[in-house]
């Protein structure tokens, strides 16, 4: 039995029944990582020894007849934006190179308590800022379907490692599409839950009011399995939701008869790739065949989503990233020539200011600096009302659009991205073009609702096409059930990149 061929659900069952040991399972995935990741660069850190030790302990406990957690023996790859007490946590930034937090993120605590095995930390855009994974300080991730192409971002490492079967499931985070877009470009399934459904404690903040952790896997059923473990109220996160966590895995069976799916006309604007459009249309047809009905809906303010997002997110980021100043931890510039030192033609008013400027200048990459500057500018006296305050107003309108739309339909369907995976370097020279990769995904975060993306076809060139469903707040059971039903009727999610397999 090849563990890499099994679903996460099957792996957990096999280990529980003794058909597979946790060590065999973890070893199989670690071997694939050792074999494949040299070219894909999906991992920033692999914890071979730790993972095998954890797996051995789980096997010993099973042998002794002691109780096992819900994910016992399941290898999980964790985005490097989540704090792990025993592993480096860098956010793919030079600023945090080698940084080891003294505590585990709430999600990591829950995974460990469920006896999941953390195999490593995945590559990402620096501080989750980007849509291609090219903003990593430690090199881009390559798309397993075509190594010349980007996996998307920012959770590109998590998406690529699942697509290449280096881990059956991975944890990502989504601020404007960072789970759904790379899942779409890598042909896997990724869920961004409702804001507050999964605790943010220990997730290195990018934009606090938008950030949300979620599962990435090969199927909706596997996402349901992982979400059951990581969702739930955390008194340590004031924005986490107190609602009871449903048994997502047990709510997948009900058919889709009578389900109303909305289709947004604006999604079919000029930029939409024809092959993506064909894939999306075929997906709607599959849902109709499954008993759902499709209705046109309006999200009148969604077209301002990207502009709104690129004000709110940088504003929050400019403040969230102020702590990386070289004073307490992380990268600190070597002392300069002192008070009157010049650097790049610049005089510093004090050694302290010089230390701040040079540490941040050296530690952050260009995209992070760009967003810190955007946010600092937009929050400045005299600009606040014109930018930040106005963006908050538009955000409220977008949220209202969703509330109105969900009066008419149960879910909203459409493309995840306008194009399939693009070439590495294709958009790096044009930040604005790069920002548009979030076109179909940012509004979900602005509205605080949930969304799931999964493969709905392939281009002639063999690249995956992603479909996105968005639901009202706390509609995860419905999102997962609809995606799971789609995957029972199609086989797109089972395809593997040939070069890898």
């Amino acid at each position, binding site marked *: 039995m090849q563990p890499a061929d099994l679903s996460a659900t099957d792996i957990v069952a096999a280990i529980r029944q003794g058909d597979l040991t946790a060590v065999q399972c973890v070893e199989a995935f670690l071997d694939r990582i050792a074999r494949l990741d040299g070219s894909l660069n999906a991992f920033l850190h692999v914890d071979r020894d730790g993972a095998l030790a954890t797996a051995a302990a789980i096997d010993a406990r099973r042998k002794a007849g002691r109780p096992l957690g819900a994910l016992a023996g399941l290898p999980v790859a964790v985005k490097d934006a989540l*704090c792990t007490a025993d592993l480096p946590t860098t956010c793919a930034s030079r600023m945090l190179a080698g940084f080891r*937090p003294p505590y585990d993120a709430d999600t990591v605590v829950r995974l460990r308590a469920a006896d999941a095995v953390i195999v490593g930390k995945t590559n990402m855009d620096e501080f989750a800022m980007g849509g291609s994974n090219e903003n990593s300080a430690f090199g881009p991730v390559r798309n397993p379907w075509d190594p010349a192409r980007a996996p998307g971002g920012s959770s590109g490492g998590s998406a690529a490692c699942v697509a290449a079967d280096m881990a059956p499931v991975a944890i990502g985070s989504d601020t404007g599409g960072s789970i759904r877009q790379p899942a779409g470009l890598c042909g896997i399934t990724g869920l961004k839950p409702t804001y507050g459904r999964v605790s943010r404690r220990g997730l*290195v903040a990018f934009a606090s009011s938008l950030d949300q952790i979620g599962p990435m896997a090969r199927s909706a059923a596997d996402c349901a399995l992982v979400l059951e473990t990581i969702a739930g109220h955390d008194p340590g996160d004031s924005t986490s939701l107190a609602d009871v966590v449903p048994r997502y895995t047990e709510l997948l069976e009900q058919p889709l008869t009578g389900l109303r799916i909305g289709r947004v006309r604006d999604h079919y604007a000029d930029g939409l790739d024809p092959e993506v459009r064909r894939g999306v249309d075929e997906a709607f047809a599959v849902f109709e065949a499954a008993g759902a009905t499709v209705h046109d809906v309006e999200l009148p303010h969604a077209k301002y989503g990207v502009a709104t997002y690129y004000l709110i997110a940088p504003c929050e980021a400019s403040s969230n990233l102020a702590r990386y100043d070289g004073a307490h931890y992380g990268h600190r510039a070597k002392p300069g020539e002192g008070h009157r030192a010049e650097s790049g033609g610049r005089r510093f008013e004090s050694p302290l200011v010089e230390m701040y400027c040079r540490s941040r200048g050296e530690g952050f990459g260009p995209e992070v600096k760009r967003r810190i500057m955007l946010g600092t500018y937009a*929050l400045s006296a005299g600009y606040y009302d014109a930018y930040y305050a106005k963006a908050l107003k538009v955000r409220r309108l977008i949220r209202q659009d969703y509330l109105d739309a969900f009066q008419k339909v149960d879910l909203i369907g459409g493309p995840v991205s306008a194009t399939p995976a693009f070439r590495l370097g294709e958009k790096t020279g044009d930040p604005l073009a790069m920002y548009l990769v979030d076109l179909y995904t940012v509004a979900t975060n602005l509205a605080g609702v949930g969304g799931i993306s999964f493969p709905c076809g392939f281009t002639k060139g063999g690249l995956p096409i992603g479909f996105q469903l968005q639901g009202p707040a706390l509609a995860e059971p419905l999102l997962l059930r609809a995606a799971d039903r789609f995957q029972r009727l199609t086989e797109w999610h089972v395809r593997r990149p040939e070069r890898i397999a």
Partner: protein
Amino acid sequence: MTASAATSEPYTTVIGLEVHVQLQTRTKLFCGCSTRFGAAPNTQVCPVCLGLPGSLPVMNRTAFTLALKAALALGCRIAAFTKWDRKNYFYPDLPKGYQISQYDLPFSSDGHLEVTDPKGGFVRNVGIVRVHLEEDAGKSMHDEAAGTADSRIDLNRAGTPLCEIVTQPDLRSPQEARAWLNELKLLLVYLGVSDCNMQEGSLRVDANVNLHIPQPDGRIAKTPIVEIKNMNSFRSVERALAYEAVRQYDEWQATKAELGTTPKQTRGWDDPAGVTRAQRHKEESSDYRYFPDPDLVPVTVDERQLAEVRASMGEPPAVLRGTLAAKWRISPYDADVLVNQGRDIVAYFEDVATRVGEGKVASNWLQQDVLRTLNERGESIDAFPVRPEALADLIGRVQKGEFDTSRGREIFAEMLASGRSVADVVASLGIAVVDDADLVALCRELLAENPKIVADVRGGKEQAAAGLIGQAKKKNPNVNPAKVRQTCLELIRAM
């Protein structure tokens, strides 16, 4: 009554205060770390107050309730909805790069606190602009003098809950400012909101001051407002303001510079030198880029919650003064002295007064003996060796005439030194209480030995009896002189 304005100064001093008080909570405002003062540096910290990546704040309910108590006692309007804002600036004692504070929607505003000069000098009702909650920064210790330009940072204090109280510019003299601060401190200590210990940094004051100078043409010239910092006692606040008023008047006479012509100046008080000095101008530091903290949820306050807080507040000092004076028939001045000493002294007083059954005598003993001793020893009442029941016993015996007041003081001193009861001290000092039969026998003896005095008294010169008292003391040092006198007179009258 504005006494200060009535002085000979050709101007009015206009003062507003900004007071930061540390709330008396066990833990910090947004994490579970202890707020205990004096721990080894950086031992009371966690990922939240260190600002580590991924850490999140969670509001301390107790801190919010204490702040509500303070605001209600200051007569403030409580906002039904309040939020947290980030004040962004870089400094090494601020590990997150921002302070969590309250900007445009403070939890309370529009209050007042009146201060009365017990000597009748002034009554001043000072408006409160706002009271808000925020977290404290850490402490930096600069060592640039050592040539290394190293600074040491202690983050134990980072995240400690602070209440910021901003007054209207309603104070009119340095004396008023000091008296008002005393009243504020008294109130906050009574409420258990803060210990207001300035030495430990749990109360900090900045003052804004300028002068209003009447001109010959009837116009009032206003000098530029100066903010004074680094004052570490209420006495320094008074001194700094007094110095600053004179300095501003001199500067006015030299420059005629008025409010609005120069940017607001910050001056630091140099206590040993007794002067204020201009502080380095912080360029562009005023743009804090405030915005709502997305990690925290807004706080709502309802009537039920306010009622609960009100019910737990007890009488504020201003009310207690009146209550005490009426209940125990003591003068407003005496009530003021007692109340100003704090809730524990008032409790001690009421305990003694209840046991003795009278306020005035208890108040006298408190003020003349207990408070004086506490001042001399620098002690607080809870560690005072003479407990209320013992003091009441002593006062009762003096009132019964077992011994006179000066002997009572001796016994009090010994009780203080040894911590023993009245009875034990009386026994150990050999002060046998003279019973009535012994006293009568002693007086008969005296009268027999002093026929001249007896004759004088009978002749109408009662004061002649004084000659008997010295002799009585020689026969028995424990006799009460007043009782000897009274007994002798009665015996002579009965002859």
